């Protein structure tokens, strides 16, 4: 029989929620302490999503990495694909927070956007 154990993240209690199927294949969710826990378990089982935050290489600036995020949560299974898509990306300052860096990343419908404003460096030419 298939059984999954989830830790609820809604509050510090961290209820252990078990999801199992009975003999007739009906899903049984147990161990949640409140409605939010039940909702969490359902979403985690059907379509778990996560925000992906990372950095891309940055030229012409005093810092070398530009922080970015997905504009909306993406399917959990696509996290590593998103990371791979960012590997070769390079951006040149100036950048504004909210600027789209990669459109529709990995077909998720979500964009990769900058999360920090970075001015063009005045002394960038003498940086290694």
């Amino acid at each position: 029989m298939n059984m999954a154990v989830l830790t609820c993240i809604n509050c510090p209690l961290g209820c252990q929620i078990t999801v199992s199927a009975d003999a007739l294949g009906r899903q049984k969710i147990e161990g949640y302490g409140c409605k939010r826990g039940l909702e969490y378990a359902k979403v985690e089982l059907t379509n778990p999503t996560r925000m992906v935050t990372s950095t891309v290489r940055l030229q012409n600036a005093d810092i070398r990495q530009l922080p970015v995020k997905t504009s909306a949560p993406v399917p959990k299974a696509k996290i590593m694909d998103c990371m791979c898509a960012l590997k070769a990306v390079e951006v040149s300052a100036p950048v504004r927070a909210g600027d789209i860096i990669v459109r529709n990343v990995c077909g998720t419908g979500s964009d990769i956007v900058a999360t920090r404003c970075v001015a063009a460096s005045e002394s960038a030419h003498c940086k290694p």
Partner: protein
Amino acid sequence: MQNIDLAIIGGGPAGLAAAVGAHTQGIRDIVIFERDSTPGGILNQCIHNGFGLHAFKEELTGPEYAERFIQQTKDLGIRIRLNTMVLSISPQREITAVNEQGVLHVQAKAIVLAMGCRERPRGALNIPGSRPAGIYTAGTAQRFVNLNGYLPGKEVVILGSGDIGLIMARRMTLEGVHVKAVVELMPYSNGLKRNIVQCLDDFGIPLLLSHTVTEIVGRRRLEGVKIAQVDADRRPVPETEQYIPCDTLLLSVGLLPENELSKSAGVQLSPITGGAVVNEQLETSAEGIFACGNVLHVHDLVDYVSEESLLAGRNAARYIQNALAETRRNIPILPRGGVRYTVPSMIDPRLMDPELVVRFRVDQVYRGYRVCVYLGDHLEYSRKARVLTPGEMESVTLTQAMFAKQETVPSVTVSVERAE
């Protein structure tokens, strides 16, 4: 000697919010001293999201959260002296700082301390073994990865399951690093549940509770660590020792308020928080010197740092405007029964705002307890708490109305008690 109204030491989330708070109260001659080349402090390297849920009702990344306050200080015309390191503060509020132009001497009418905290280093742990390269605090590794674009290693063990360690376990995994285990001395993690699930469970990284690192192996570069289970007294059990090869060990073993400058100003520190002892104005034992944020006590959420710092800035402004009474009547706020400390730790009800948030931490995990507030012997307030953990800061709100009911209150007590 330059004269200014308000000097704020540190341009991170606490300093920025304190400046906004002082400006709102009508003070204009404000200078923030920041030793880095950009404002925003540690938020700049906290590129993950989850900030601002309380303050802005949305989930922001660290740099986005910082940007909100940086923009606000810009709009208000508040001066920030970047690349400027404060070297000392005198009890008379003379500041000595240094930058590329040389040494600066500034006399301030009031000061807000907002220097933040530092990570506990290896030296604070007494882990036996050699001293090879490859051992970093989690925050140092975070800076390398997120700002400088370097990976500190390829095979990593993390000691301590604080939030920075958990966040770095995920961050390094996303960058292709093999995080072999997170080792935690205590039988529970101090990190948020959300971080345990989304930073460890999502990637199958084992969390070894009641374990610690017993030896560091390697001469020039770290080659591996020995870990072992610990008993109820947190002593390693030799039979359980095992060796994990790795080239990097990250330490996420607690934060300490950075109060070197406070000491030079003669500020009295609490042995429990490591931060200043403050009254309801968030004023320290040194007159006209206020403290807020992680230099006062280590917070889990930046939202509460901002809230506290707005208040400290506003109160510093009121001090400059001579709005604070000269003679105080301090009532101690006593932590009892599982409450480790409170901030503030004293209150003068005549000078308090209509409402005052008192923040505290408990010493262990409590399930099914009550948070109680006594004025003198009288139980004034209590609420049920399904769970209280050392990792999550708690608070109670004292009101003027509570104090109006009693003629004289000798003390306020905050405690956690078993629910009937």
